[in-house]
């Protein structure tokens, strides 16, 4: 007879256990948690882990999508399919609503994106749903400001992050104390790397939007990056669309998320590709991170996750 044991944990088991512990800690400590969900691989893995954490009960919090309106169609289809199949509650906070109400002003011109405007929709969604804890799928390996982030990240009444006044975080003891109006952002994937995510997707056979795998697509090359030609992307004079075999490493706003040339068509091929890559996913595919060296830090201080 084989013994099924959890005595020796591989690094994926250890990461999974740590994330599960965090989900349960939030469910126990907070009144109204919510989980950010974009249909991107990190939020998909986060959602998968959260459901495992409360088995066989349903996950005790809803999903919230901050929708810029500039989505890849495949991702929205995937999002709606997940909601149908799992019966989870999905709340959507639209950036367009803020634009229509005059709460934010859309920048115009080539190379602008709605990414910065997301912060207002995110904070409004948190307030309207009275969330006291919000899960995000950010990882510390993604970006240098995120490497400084706590698992339980205290946010003041403006949703702002103060990197110089963070609570020390020790052992497995997470401090969720906050006053009315304040909230805690929670990052259960803090210690995962891009490779861990893909190895886990492969191990658990998790379904993802198809744009994560190699496919033929019309792209425009700009600043060394391949941007998908979509109805949201304004082209510059001289820019010619061409068809390439590509896949996406991250999924975000379609106007600022690049793709990479790749023939990795399944999980095993993607794991091999990610293990060998010499460029970070954000460096390869996120135009908005290139604005300044402290772009992410500044946005987090404004309330971004």
């Amino acid at each position, binding site marked *: 007879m084989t013994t099924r044991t959890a005595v020796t944990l*591989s690094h994926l088991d250890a990461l999974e256990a740590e994330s599960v512990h965090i989900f349960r800690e939030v469910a126990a400590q907070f009144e109204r948690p919510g989980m950010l969900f974009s249909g991107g691989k990190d939020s998909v893995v986060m959602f998968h882990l959260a459901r495992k954490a409360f088995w066989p009960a349903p996950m005790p919090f809803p999903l919230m999508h901050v929708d810029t309106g500039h989505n890849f169609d495949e991702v929205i289809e995937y999002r709606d399919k997940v909601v149908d199949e799992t019966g989870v509650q999905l709340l959507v906070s639209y950036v367009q609503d803020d634009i229509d109400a005059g709460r934010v002003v859309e920048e115009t011109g080539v190379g602008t994106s709605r990414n910065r405007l997301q912060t207002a929709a995110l904070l409004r969604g948190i307030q309207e749903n009275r969330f006291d804890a919000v899960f995000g799928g950010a990882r510390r390996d993604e970006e240098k400001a995120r490497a400084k982030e706590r698992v339980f990240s205290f946010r003041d009444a403006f949703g702002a992050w103060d990197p110089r006044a963070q609570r020390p975080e020790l052992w497995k003891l997470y401090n969720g104390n906050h006053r009315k109006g304040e909230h805690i952002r929670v990052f259960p994937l803090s210690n995962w790397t891009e490779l861990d995510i893909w190895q886990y997707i492969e191990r658990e056979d998790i379904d993802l939007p198809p744009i994560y795998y190699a496919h033929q697509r019309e792209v425009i090359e700009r600043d060394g990056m391949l941007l998908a030609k979509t109805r949201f992307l304004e082209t510059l004079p001289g820019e010619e669309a061409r068809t390439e075999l590509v896949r996406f490493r991250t999924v975000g706003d379609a106007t600022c998320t690049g793709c990479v040339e790749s023939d990795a068509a399944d999980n095993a091929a993607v794991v091999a590709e990610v293990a060998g890559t010499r*460029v970070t996913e954000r460096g390869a595919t996120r135009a908005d991170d290139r604005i300044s060296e402290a772009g992410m830090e500044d946005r987090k201080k404004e309330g971004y996750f």
Partner: protein
Amino acid sequence: MSEHAQLLRIATAGSVDDGKSTLIGRLLYDSKGIFEDQLASIEATSAKRGDEYTDLALLTDGLRSEREQGITIDVAYRYFSSPRRKFIIADTPGHVQYTRNMVTGASTADVAIILVDARKGVLEQTRRHAFLSALLGIPRLVVAVNKMDLVDYDEATYEAIRSEFTDFAAKLEVHDVTFVPLSALKGDNVVDRTDSMPWYTGPALLDHLENVHIASDRNLTDVRFPVQYVIRPQRADGLDHRSFAGTVAGGIMKVDDEVVVMPSGRQSTIKAIWGPGGAELDEAAAPAAVTIALNDEIDIVRGEMIARPGNRPHQGTELEAMVCWFADDSALTPNKRYVVKHTTRDTKAIVTGLEYRLDINSLHRDPDSTELGLNEIGRIGLRTQTPLMYDPYRRNRDTGAFILVDELTGNTVGAGMIIGPATTGSNVVWHAGAVQRGDRGQGRTLWLTGLSGSGKSTVASEVERLLIESGHPAYILDGDNLRHGLNADLGFSAEDRAENIRRTAEVAALFADAGVVVICSLISPMRADRDKARSVHVAADLPFTEVFVDTPLAECEARDPKGLYAKARAGEIPEFTGVSAPYEPPLTPDLHIRPEDGTAEEVAQRIVSSILGI
């Protein structure tokens, strides 16, 4: 890296300019953990600042104000991997708020890397970091003697640092110290071994980190399961499921095990164990996150603890702990109230006393201090509103740790490591005498463990003789002799053996408190019992040295001084250690004695010198 690779958590420490960020940058760079775009970005920043070479420290200094000032302000976490392991490095700052940040990074670390600048040698800061690593219970230290290129790769310089640090570390409870001479800037002995120091025969730093054995660090003896969350789905289809979710904090939990729920004391057996998502398991150990179901309907809520009926954690409201203070706007003072977060339990608590403030540079204890300020460490008494179920931190980092939260601001203001139950304050009042411990000689306990016939008693009497000859009061407590009087009522069942050790440990602690060097010579086969003997001493703040007299069974049996093995083999003695009862060797004894180490006199001399320095 395969998905089965192991996870190793590392904390780094070092003072301001000894090159910690550079070392981490080098580890990442040479192990191909830095990506091209990250490198391009730090190359550009270095060039903009006019640096002569690419400053790898920029990789870890992620905040705007850190890069502007060229210093590290807050803990950052970095990731890299090798074919065998995945590494998480907590990069902790050297100076600003050093203690608080180092404690944060060290709380979960398996290994601490302490940097020493070869030109400067062992500094106050080095001692402080080594002490903090020991206090935080990090089982192994790596001393990275950096900037060897600036001392012409000189062996004598390295050896002097190694020897000075070894002398200092002997005063701390760290048993595993490894030294690596290296240059983070040049890359010598970081990822690849260098030709510049042919006199060094050990591994490069990464090689050591890849191979260091960490599996034994977990407590696999004492079953501890703090209940985190109750899973009770309400479903229309009538699914009947009630289970308790949590993260195993100690021991190996098995299906069918008898368990006790604390504090209610109700008992049951484990019906099922499930991993995340419902994977059925037969057993689980720390740090697995599982849910369990019991065979009896018992009302259990978050904050309760599941353990084994014969092996329970301490339960109580009065305890003593070491505390590191984190708040810069308020001090810890006696009679102040806080919220304690311990395992999954939150409760109010009051500081009953500050026994002393510790100067972590000199290790001097100041009993007259009245408060702890930012980054200060001290020993406190604590009374909690509801009982905590805990172990000494030394025994279990998960059930022995807590944080203090300010009731008004909700901020984390202190980190605590439990020593044990309070010796004062309960209904049984400790009678304090007029003579203080410092007025007597320094007592201590040497605990000799090993198989019957291993030579414990011979070594013990030699140690006693040497000590008495050199004027130190000493006395042997021999297992066999004690069974004639104090323990005459005890047999050899597991419970009786545990009680035998418990009484002996308490008596030893009294001797040690009286200023005597007490030499306990007992087979003491079970690790848990020996650890309890140690915790009695730790709680009383008395030195305790575990000496493993490691003579192989075959040799003990060949010696058979009392003819006991022959009887045991003939079936005349049931439950004989090594033959029909188990012996759990110490995993990290303070001293390890093997037959090839020499005669009993030589071994005794070695023990006496290493303990007393004579």
